[in-house]
Structure formats: C-alpha cells, structure tokens
C-alpha cells in the first residue's frame, strides 16, 4: 500500500446463496399437458396469461390450464398444488 492509498474495512456483505439447478426440460410438446398459469395479482397479469392460454389451446390439442394467483411476492400457498398438478408453469410478474 503506497502513500496515496488507505486501508478500509470492506463494507459489502458476504452473501448467503445456495445455487439451485433449473428443472430438466423433458416435455417435447405441450399437447395433452397440464400447464399452470401463475399471476401476481397486478393489473392485467391475469388477462395477459388468459391470452397466452388461448394461444396455447389453439396450438396444442388437449392442453389443460390451471390458473392460480399469488397475492404477494413472498406468498407461496399455491406452489405445492402447482408442482403436484402441473408439468410446466408460466408466471406473469410485475406491472
């Protein structure tokens, strides 16, 4: 350390992060699959997912849609249901 420098305590914190892998992408098509649609209770998020659902239904025979809503960003009550009932989930978050 030369004269033009001083020592400081690093003010940034170490982070508590556990790395998690993405789920494997096994579906070859959404035909006949149950797909979750999860919105965040913001205006239009449900309608946006409704349109996405219509577009998916037009493309894939037998697709089933399960619409759920998350009331806050930390609330997760519907996640167990989505993860046991659905084979993929589309989220629409933020305004």
């Amino acid at each position, binding site marked *: 350390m030369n004269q033009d420098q001083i020592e*400081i305590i690093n003010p*940034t914190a170490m982070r508590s992060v556990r790395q998690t892998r993405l789920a494997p992408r096994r579906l070859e098509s959404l035909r006949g699959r149950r797909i979750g649609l999860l919105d965040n209770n913001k205006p239009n998020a449900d309608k946006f997912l409704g349109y996405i659902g219509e577009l998916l239904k037009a493309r894939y025979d037998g697709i089933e849609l399960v619409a759920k809503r998350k009331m806050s960003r930390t609330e997760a009550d519907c*996640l167990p249901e989505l993860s046991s009932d659905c084979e*993929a989930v589309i989220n629409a978050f933020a305004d």
Partner: protein
Amino acid sequence: MKLESTGIPTATVVTEEFLPLALTEARSRGMADLPLIRVPHPVGTLAADSLRSVAERAVDSILAQLVCGKAKASASSAAVPSAIGDDSNLTLTVPSDPAEMFRLFDERGWTDGLPVLPPTPAAVERMIAASRQEREIVLGIIPPLKGIATIEKIAANSVMAGCLPEYFPLVLAAVKGMLRPGYNLDGVQTTTGNVAPLTIVNGP
C-alpha cells in the same frame, strides 16, 4: 424458483422495467439462469387489443423455455446492478484523496450520491466497541440480495453514513427490528411503490 427446484419447468414473464430486479433476484437466490421473458413496460394499463398483441409476440419465447430442444432465447445478457460486492476480502485499499475515494465508492454503488466517510479499521473498531458485541455476530440476512449482516459490516456502513459510535446500538436495534418477519423488509426493499423505513426514537 421454488417450482424449478421441485422439477417443474417454468417461464417467467416480466416487463422491461422489472428485468434488472428479476435478474438480481434470480442471481441472489442462486438461479442466475432462470428463464425470463421480457415484454414492454407497462402492461397494467394496456387495453385488451394491445395486451393481446403483447401476448402474441411473447408466446414463442415462452414455449422455447418450456419445451426441450428449442433454442434458448434468454434475456440474461442484460446488465445486472451490482451494488453488492463479490469481493470477499475483509479489507480493501482505496485512494486516500477524498474526491478519488468518493468516485470509487460511487462507482461501486456504496453511496446513493451523498458524501460518505471511509470505514477505516480504527473507525470501525470504535463503532464495534460501542456495541459491546463481537464483530462476527450475525443479526440476520438482509433481503433481497441476502447479505449476511454481521456487527462488523453494519459498523462499517454506519461509519460511512456518519453515525457516531454512541448511536450505534440504536442502529443495531433498528436493523433487528427491520429483520422481524412482520416488517416485510423484502417487500419494502423491492417495491416500486414509494415507501421508506422510518424509525421513531423515544426516550431520555
């Protein structure tokens, strides 16, 4: 992210304004490659026709993230704010010239533009001494980036903010209060609504 970790593929649609937050959250929660689909901001005020055309433009990108063998059209190339350092060194050397030092602190996102003091080892030591606690004690994990709040890190930040050592116990009490679950610090820190923490101190 919880769904991905239980084996369910997901595609998350976010508006452009929220993309940096979504990327930061994904990274800080250990899933930097979470599939995000970007749409123009805002969608909340769009009329039905416009909303439908946003959905029509987004649907292929959504499918690409859910079905195997399709090209990955990820938004992960966008810039991510890095206010929190990845530097695990306990001490750093910085320019002693105040203006140069401030420029460095500003570049690193260590100030919101207001002047800050250097957290020298001696100044941080005085702060820790005023707490009568060990420097390694952890008060909690600060959302959303999950920084581990030790007495030493809070002391260093208090020095920077101009806190006097005799006030430091109050800062620690406020941090403890904000970390109580009912306070919802995660929400306070990430909402685009106008909220700011307020501490009312009463006493002699």
